[in-house]
C-alpha cells in the first residue's frame, strides 16, 4: 500500500524538511496565492499557454522564426520571454528546493503504479510518457487551459468553460486509468 495515500493526512507542520504537507493546507496555499496573483499582477495562475509558446520557440529554431510568426496560432500567442516564462521556470526552482530539502529527488524512470500494471520496461514508459504529454497539451490547447488555468483559476471564478473541463477530464482520466491499470504483470 502506498504510504503517501490519502488514508493518513499528515499533520500541520509546514517545515521544508517534511516530504509532504497536509493537502488541505497546500490547497489553501494555492488559493491564497491566487488572491495575490489577481491583486498584484491581475493575472491568474496558468501553465499550458506558456508551454505551447515554448513549442513555438523550439519550432522557430528548426523551421525559422517566419514559419512561426506566419502560423495562425503562434501569431496570436507569440513565443516571448515574459512573466509566464519566469513563473514556469521558478515553479521548477521551487519544486527543486522543496524536493531537495524534503529528500524527494529521484531520477525515476518507471513509477511504481505503472510498473505494477505495465511492467518495468523503460522504453514502454518513455513512449507512453511522450504520447501522454503530447495528448495532454493538445487537449489543453483545444480546451483553452489545463489543470491550473481551468481546473483551479477558472473554476474559482465560476467560469462555465472550467466547470465543463473539470468533470469531463476527470471522467476520461478514470476510463483511461481503468484500461491502463487493470491487469497486474508478473514483472
Amino acid at each position: 500500500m502506498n504510504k503517501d495515500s490519502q488514508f493518513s493526512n499528515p499533520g500541520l507542520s509546514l517545515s521544508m524538511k517534511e516530504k509532504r504537507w497536509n493537502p488541505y493546507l497546500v490547497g489553501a496555499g494555492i488559493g491564497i496565492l491566487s488572491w495575490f496573483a489577481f491583486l498584484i499582477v491581475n493575472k491568474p495562475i496558468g501553465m499550458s499557454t506558456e508551454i505551447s509558446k515554448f513549442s513555438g520557440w523550439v519550432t522557430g529554431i528548426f523551421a525559422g522564426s517566419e514559419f512561426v510568426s506566419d502560423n495562425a496560432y503562434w501569431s496570436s500567442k507569440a513565443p516571448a520571454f515574459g512573466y509566464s516564462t519566469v513563473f514556469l521556470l521558478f515553479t521548477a526552482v521551487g519544486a527543486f528546493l522543496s524536493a531537495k530539502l524534503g529528500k524527494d529527488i529521484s531520477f525515476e524512470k518507471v513509477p511504481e503504479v505503472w510498473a505494477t500494471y505495465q511492467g518495468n520496461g523503460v522504453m514502454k514508459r518513455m513512449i507512453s510518457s511522450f504520447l501522454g504529454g503530447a495528448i495532454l497539451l493538445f487537449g489543453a490547447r483545444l480546451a483553452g487551459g489545463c489543470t491550473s488555468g481551468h481546473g483551479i483559476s477558472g473554476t474559482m471564478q465560476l467560469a462555465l468553460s472550467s466547470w465543463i473541463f473539470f468533470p469531463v477530464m476527470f471522467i476520461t482520466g478514470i476510463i483511461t486509468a481503468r484500461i491502463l491499470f487493470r491487469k497486474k504483470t508478473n514483472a
Partner: protein
Amino acid sequence: MDLPISTSSTTGLIIAAVFGTIFGILLNKGRVTDYNVIVNLFRFKDLTVLKIMLTAIVIGGIGVFAMKEFGWIEGYHIKDTNLAGIILGSGIFGVGMALYGYCPGTAVAAIATGRIHAMVGFLGMLFGGIVYALSYGWIKANLLNIGQLGKVRLDEVTPIPALVWLIILTVGSIGIFRFIERKAVKPDLI
C-alpha cells in the same frame, strides 16, 4: 504602490519568480509531483489531488469574489466557452493526464525533482503544442465555432447568483471532504 503591477515590468518579473517558487513548493509538498499520487486519483486510491484542488477553488473563489466586490480587482479572467472545443479538449486532456501521470504544471515541477519520465513527457508536450499550432487553422474553422457561448460564468447562465454558487461550492466541498475522510477509516470501501 499602484496595483496591478505590469507583468512586463522588472518588478512584475520578480513577482513571477516569487509566485512561481511558492507554487512549485506547494506542488511538491502536496505530493502532486509524484506520478503515483496523480494516477491514484483516477483509481480512487488516493484523493490528495481532489483535496488540494477543491480547497484551492473554495479559498481562492471566496477571496477573488470578495476582492471583486470591494473593487480591488478589475474583472475576471476566464476562458471562452466553445462547447465542442472544451468538451473534446477536456476529454483528450484527461486521457493524456492518466497516461503521462502529470498535468502541465505538475510536470514542470516533477522534472525539477529529477523524474526522467516526466522530462520525456515534456518533450511530448512540446510536440503536442506544435501539432496543435499546425492544425489550428482547421480547428478554428471546424471546431471552435461550435457552441460559442463566450466568456460566461455560472451565475450568468443560471438564475443562481455568484455568492450562492460559492456557498454551494463550499458546503459541497466540505461534504465531500467529510465523506472521504470517513471512508478513509475503511479504505476497502472506496
